[in-house]
């Protein structure tokens, strides 16, 4: 009994060492905004080539950290790498490659939209998130308290939104009543509420969660649409990036080439975003 146990421990150890050197699948990790496009493309790529592509969520910041620490082959980011992030890993070189374009859209519960609040200025949105205004009646809506939904600080969606609205991607939102993580979670919270405002990727808007138009300082009103995102008129447009390091494997590079090719770009469109190449 005991010798056979010792033997099995030995075998297990040997197997561990052997398996550690086995060739790996491609792993991709990061932004929940970029994820749907990459994940769909990954499924198709695996089916075509037999190479498995493992896709993991965790937010843009998480994706970058995992890439920098060598735990994933490709990071997904719905924003640019910040100077602070680069500084933490100064010895490494990173490449950002845009695979699609998207917009963050200030989104509200359909009840408020239907009651007449369909557009706001940036400073009005800023008033909501900094806690200066807390009732929809101030913007011509019903007399209901505004339920402001924030996102976790490292999320790409939040950083674009806060940069445009408050001027600082890391701004604190004193007016926030709830914090969510992924787009799915934010969408759920907006749907369940009847007086909420939040921030969503364009692809997550639907009948229950409506995107606000933005009124610019010159009075021009810009609706969130694929057209205004493509032209860059809508103020919250961003690139959806995949990020690599200098030592990223050939296999991972091949997958990125696939993402930028016609089939990958179709998946970007299917996921509700705008392609970067034809």
């Amino acid at each position, binding site marked *: 009994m005991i010798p056979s146990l010792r033997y099995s421990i030995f075998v297990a150890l040997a197997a561990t060492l052997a398996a550690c050197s086995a060739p790996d699948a491609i*792993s991709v990790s990061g932004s929940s905004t970029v994820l749907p496009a990459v994940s769909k493309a990954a499924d198709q790529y695996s089916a075509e080539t037999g190479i*498995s592509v493992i*896709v*993991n969520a965790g937010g843009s910041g998480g994706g970058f950290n995992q890439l920098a620490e*060598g*735990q994933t082959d490709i990071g997904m980011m719905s924003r640019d790498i910040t100077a602070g992030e680069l500084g933490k890993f100064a010895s490494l070189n990173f490449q950002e490659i845009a695979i699609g374009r998207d917009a963050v859209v200030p989104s509200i519960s359909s009840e408020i939209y239907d009651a007449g609040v369909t557009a706001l200025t940036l400073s009005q949105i800023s008033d909501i998130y900094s806690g200066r205004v807390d009732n929809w009646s101030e913007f011509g809506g019903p007399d209901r308290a505004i339920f402001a939904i924030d996102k976790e600080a490292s999320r790409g969606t939040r950083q674009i939104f806060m940069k445009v609205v408050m001027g600082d991607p890391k701004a604190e939102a004193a007016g926030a009543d709830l914090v969510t993580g*992924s787009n*799915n979670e934010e*969408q759920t919270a907006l749907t369940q509420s009847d007086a909420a405002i939040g921030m969503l990727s364009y692809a997550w808007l639907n009948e229950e969660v409506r995107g606000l138009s933005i009124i610019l300082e010159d009075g021009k009103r810009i609706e969130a649409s694929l057209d205004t995102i493509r032209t860059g008129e809508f103020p919250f447009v961003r690139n959806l990036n995949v990020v690599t390091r200098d030592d990223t494997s050939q296999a991972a590079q091949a997958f990125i080439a696939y993402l930028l090719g016609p089939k990958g770009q179709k998946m970007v469109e299917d996921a509700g975003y705008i392609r970067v190449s034809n």
Partner: protein
Amino acid sequence: MSERVNIRRVQEKCFAFILRASLALCGGVLVFLLGSIVVKGFGSLSLDFFFTPAKDFGKSGGVIYQILGSLLMVVAAAVLVLPLALGTAIFQISYNARPKIRYVLEQSLYALNAIPSITYGLFGLIFFVNVLNTGISWFVGAVILAIMILPTAILSTYQAMAAIPKTYQENAAALGLTKAQVIRRVTLPQSFHGLVTGLLIGLARAIGETAPIMFIATAFSGVTVPQSLVEPVSTLPTHILELAQQSTDPQALQNAWGASLILVGLVAGFSGLALLIRSRLSSEGRK
């Protein structure tokens, strides 16, 4: 005087009511919990759900790789914990001379049992994923789960060993067997059911855990059967976590309930097996 009796009688009535109400409340919660898992879960169960991979971020398709991933990880955890639990239990029962060492060991095991599951995940992330640089790997998840179930496995084995009548070992020793021989010929066979039961109870707990493995061992999509030890897998609990975050999507929600029912079924299966083996083997061992 009679007024005093009346007050007492009213108090008694109230007390009886509170007792019944509390039990009814507990019963109500129980029926609601199990009822909703079973009723909601059965709605999405089908052969396809068991045997096809997840599609569309879990909204359609089944959970085959989640079931396989969960089972792979907990079975590996059991294999890892088995020799360690056995050795420690024998040490406690046969070799432990100094009370101080015994005390340290006991307190360590209680501490291990008390540590919140999320901090096991944190420890795994630091120690394995970063310091030993394993990356996100199902095997690291199995190691962490093994550590989590270690106290249960040791305790169960130890109790079975302690229940062996002292005369057995004494007789064996009187026949001239060495200590190691006594352990191999008497202690082990007589307490094997304790080890198996402990492992199964541990498995039942480990398979339902999300927090310890979500940083270190699992991935969201694209996972099939891992080809090496350093790949992530997908598991039932982490799959439910993803689906629970999109709870306004009826399809996602339905699949979350289906996965929950399977998970609860696996937990109940391992626990049931543990009970069965405890009653079977412990009575056989005595013969």
